[in-house]
């Protein structure tokens, strides 16, 4: 490149180097365990989910309703104190058909993560969740979906209180 330099440093290793024991290495597992506080806004969101309601928060200055709720409006930096119940229906903003897990194991039936714009929130404001009870080849952006909740007894105040979203039969 600096044209007089012909060789660049760095020594690539191959899988074979490991299999043949040519390389010494040190293996260890770092064991981190955490307990996260929900905070004020997400605490309210989770309490809402336990009651079968998706909560958003509203800034009356910016006239925006966001989801999940938060304590401060990131646009005007005023407090967002008004929590509003939203609908449990929405529109698929985007989706993926995912055939691998986080550790790169293969899946035969894809997981279908999606961003779902929640009815009652401002346009383009959604949450990430999963789609099920749908033919993967028929999922499309703009598809109308509805939350499938766990039963009231099973709900714990977690995002997984919504098991998944499924298509709404268009009438």
């Amino acid at each position, binding site marked *: 490149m600096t044209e007089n330099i012909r060789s660049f440093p760095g020594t690539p290793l191959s899988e074979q180097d490991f299999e043949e024991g040519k390389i010494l290495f040190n293996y260890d597992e770092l064991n981190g365990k955490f307990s996260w506080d929900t905070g004020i806004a997400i605490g309210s969101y989770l309490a809402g989910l336990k009651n079968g309601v998706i909560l958003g928060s509203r800034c009356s200055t910016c006239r925006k309703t966001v989801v999940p709720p938060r304590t401060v409006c990131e646009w005007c930096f005023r407090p967002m104190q008004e929590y509003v119940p939203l609908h449990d229906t929405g529109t698929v903003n985007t989706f*993926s058909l*995912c055939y691998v897990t986080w550790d790169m194991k293969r899946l035969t039936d894809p997981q279908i993560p999606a961003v779902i714009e929640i009815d009652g929130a401002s346009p383009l404001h959604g949450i990430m969740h999963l789609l099920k009870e749908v033919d993967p080849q028929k999922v499309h*952006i703009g598809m109308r979906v509805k939350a499938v909740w766990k039963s009231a007894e099973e709900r714990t105040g977690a995002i997984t209180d919504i098991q998944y979203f499924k298509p709404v039969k268009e009438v």
Partner: protein
Amino acid sequence: MTMRKVAVIGAGMTKFVRRAQETPKELSWLATRMALESCELTLDDIEAVCMGTAPDSFDGIHMKGEYLSDGAGAWRKPYMRSYVGGGTGVFVPIQGWYHVASGMFDVVLVVAEEKMSNFYPHAQAAFLTIFDHTTERPLGPNLLWIFALEMNRYMTTYGISKEDIARVSVQHKRNAANHPCALLGDPDITVEDVLNSEVLAYPVQRYDVSPVSDGAVAIVLAAEHVAKRLTDKPVWVEGVGWNLDTAHWTNRDLVYPRYVEYAARMAYDMAGIKEPKKEIHIAEPYDPFDYKALHHLEGLQLAERGQAPQLYIDGTAARDGNMPVCPSGGLLGVGNPIAAAGLMKIAELFWQLRGEAGDRQVPGQPRRGIAQAWGDLMQVGTVVIMGR
């Protein structure tokens, strides 16, 4: 505010490899030594050191900046590590730039290093913690999701085909075949190869993605009076910009990277550039996925929204086109050791603008180039404009 002119006067890099025998410190030292030798300086000439590297969790080493410091030549010098996710590699030269532009230092070393192979068995797991621990991680996400979601939104909004996007991967990997440090250069790869590669998370397929890699890059920055004494081919940092969008990524339209636009406008203003499409001769947008190069070209105002694929179709983006894109081979071809990959783009502009890029040289004596990186939760844009 008066700012001093700052030049890049030297650059060095290691090969980008799947797994390096060298430790992170050793990689940093190899790149740093090469950068110093390229401008005939020694560590005694360096007044401060800026280090860019990704989260500590990649290496399983706490305070990685401090860990890397001897390899980066930082001891007994003003030293600071910066980190803005994938945007780090183009942010750390900005950090170096304001060290010099401010008048604080005359000669500053900028080093970026990443060793992703440490993470076992696969670095993907290191990315899981970018998702919100309470509202997202219980859904079992993986990193590919956000790229697949953004890519699908981009494609569907503008009616862009997978084939249009695959051309990016093909061109970058072909370009990388001429880069002596490249991990995935391939002069013969075709659009069909990309379209036939394994579907990981539709619309993302195997060859849409850059490889995790190990590597390091270093550059030397100098104030004008020093640069002119040391080289007759200084490459000036003409503009810098950086910007951050909301972390609530499901509350904004993924179709367009507004934060890249804001970062680019900041840099164009500083460089006095009014018409980027005419005044930028080489573009090195961040390309960890092929669609991201397109997305970023639009954010950089180098293509209209939804029109970036046209640059690859009509040859504008080719190495001998009107505005070559990623003549280095980019992250898709050279490799993606996160922070080092961004700084590789700065090194590429340095070599291209000096006419020293060897087999990769862009014809026509290019005068000005732009490098950009992107990161965090799809929310940070970092931009540097360089010219001679």
